[in-house]
């Protein structure tokens, strides 16, 4: 394996040696990658909601609305980040059975998962999850519906800001709408491996 390293690097050096000049790294303005619509973007919160709906995600206005939404679809068994549950439970009636530990041996028992979102991106309707703030990667992924609870001040304007905010968390994932595929005849189907429903709940 050490031999492979030397072999590859020496072949790379050998391949590049005949080049008289190497292509230089071009300088560019980060604003170049902003889509046209960004130039006259209005209220980021409204824009986020529009973009998330465009990818079939949903925004819950508050905790009571979230509980109503889950109840209306018959999703009463779920997982919730233990740090978030005390603030939410008052809005959830006795018909809910919510656990604060995600038991992977009963993965099919959880209809929804509520975890903290590290941020959101208005430009794309993206929810950002990071290891530091996600109580359980599986709890945010395996249930049919995922609710990300995001602090309003963590809403970012666009992808260039989101890239700048990646930081040193070992694992950051941007989730833009529900899990989907178009592998079968190009027909869009949601909920392949991850959530079939993606909900954002903003809090102060």
């Amino acid at each position, binding site marked *: 394996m050490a031999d492979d390293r030397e072999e590859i690097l020496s072949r790379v050096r050998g391949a590049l040696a005949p080049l008289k000049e190497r292509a230089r790294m071009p300088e560019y303005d980060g604003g170049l990658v902003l*889509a046209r619509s960004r130039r006259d973007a209005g209220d980021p919160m409204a824009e986020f909601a529009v973009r998330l709906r465009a990818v079939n995600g949903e925004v819950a206005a508050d905790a009571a609305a979230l509980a109503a939404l889950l109840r209306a679809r018959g999703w009463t068994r779920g997982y919730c980040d233990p740090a978030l549950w005390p603030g939410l439970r008052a809005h959830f009636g006795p018909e809910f059975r919510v656990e604060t530990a995600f038991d992977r041996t009963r993965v099919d028992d959880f209809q929804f998962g509520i975890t903290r979102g590290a941020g959101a991106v208005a430009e794309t309707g993206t929810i950002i999850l990071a290891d530091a703030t996600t109580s359980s990667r599986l709890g945010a992924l395996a249930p049919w519906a995922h609710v990300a609870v995001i602090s309003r001040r963590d809403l970012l304007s666009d992808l260039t800001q989101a890239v700048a905010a990646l930081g040193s*968390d070992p694992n950051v994932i941007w989730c833009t709408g529900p899990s989907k595929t178009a592998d079968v005849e190009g027909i869009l189907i949601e909920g*392949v*491996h991850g959530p079939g429903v993606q909900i954002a709940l903003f809090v102060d």
Partner: protein
Amino acid sequence: MRTQRIDQAAARLGAETRAAVYDGAKIGHEKRTKLLFDHYADPNRLRELAGEIKQHVVENLDTYLPAVEARLVANGVKVHWASTAEAACEAVHAILRARGATKLVKAKTMVSEEIELEGYLRERGIESLETDLGEFIVQLDHDRPSHIIKPIIHKNRRQIAELFERNGLGAYNDEPQVITQRARQFLRHKYLGADAGLTGANFMVAESGRLVVVTNEGNSRFCLAATRCHIALVGIEKILPRDRDLALFLNLLARSGTAQQLSVYNEFILGPRAPGQPDGPEEMHVVFVDNGRTNVLASSCREILRCIRCGACLNVCPVYRQAGGHAYRSVYPGPVGAVLSPLLLGRRFPEKADLPKASSLCGACNEVCPVNIPIPDLLLRLRDRAHTERVPSPGTPPMGAWSILASQPAAWKVALFGGRFLDHFPRSLVPVPALRAWESSRDLPKWRGGEFRRWLKLRRKRPGAGQSSPGITP
């Protein structure tokens, strides 16, 4: 009459498959164009910029590779190097063996197809399961993917429903929703029972050591949420210089590949899971794979190493749309494959020297490429190489007679005059096998030889008269 292997494969393609490939590719291309031009006033500037950045990386891999290795090690990632397919398989196997792992779940990685990892591990008692829906179906059917990002573009729902029924995944039902739900139920228990997760990398950032994995289904995330060990197979050309370059490339990748503003899941991985995080890998390995890439780097076609595997050139290619991906006999089909696949073979280049000829050089692949690879130029360079190395080229008509005609004006003139008799002569009787083979799937237009000469003559006599050409259409 023998023809080239790619032509033979294209001729054998069933009507149903051809229609599936054609429609899938065409829709992908049209949506891409609309989205790019709706979102950007000048999307070409983005493509050119991305191309310049990747060219810079490719031409400076000698400094970028050790730099990214150092970052990875500092981030707690174990780095491995594999110069051949076999070495890459061995590296993965060694990692699994050290953990006593027998079950691997795989997110989609083209490199794993290249090195034929599944068979290697199967022979050694390790189950590796594809989790991308398309790749899962391909694996179940002992088939091969025929598109870089739409692996089962060549299959229809009926074939998939029958396949699921044969494999005990429920009674026949060809609703895509039902097919997807059945795969979801089956695969989630496989993730949870697996010992390790394998992914590729869409990008690897030199300055941070950040590995970026892009999916829509969330399968790579499930691999990295359910298992304790993450192995990433990374082609040595996957590097981007800085984190900030990701915004450009992720915007281009999603729009070019699947006509999305952004893919559903973009995962940025620096190392094993954070302390306190209950799920995910406690151990992370990156295997840098050469497997012929340094041959490409040393060739006159190193621009192809800019490729970010979006599949846009497949979707737009008139040859791919008619021939389908399997005709290329390679992991990488379509225009990018016609350049990359023969080059990756190194000295065995002649085995796939027919691929660069399967192109009309229309240039559409270059126009859609998010990293602006001059694919038609590269195809010409490879045709030249095949000619220089005297690779046999079945089906190519003998050009000796043509070169005599083309170098002697008088002979040319006679030939032009004689050519018109072709219109009155059944071409199936013409005793030139190459012409007959060509005619079997195409129609020769009516003879129009000599019109350019007449036009030029007229123009010389009366300057200005030849402004619009008589009968010569572009």
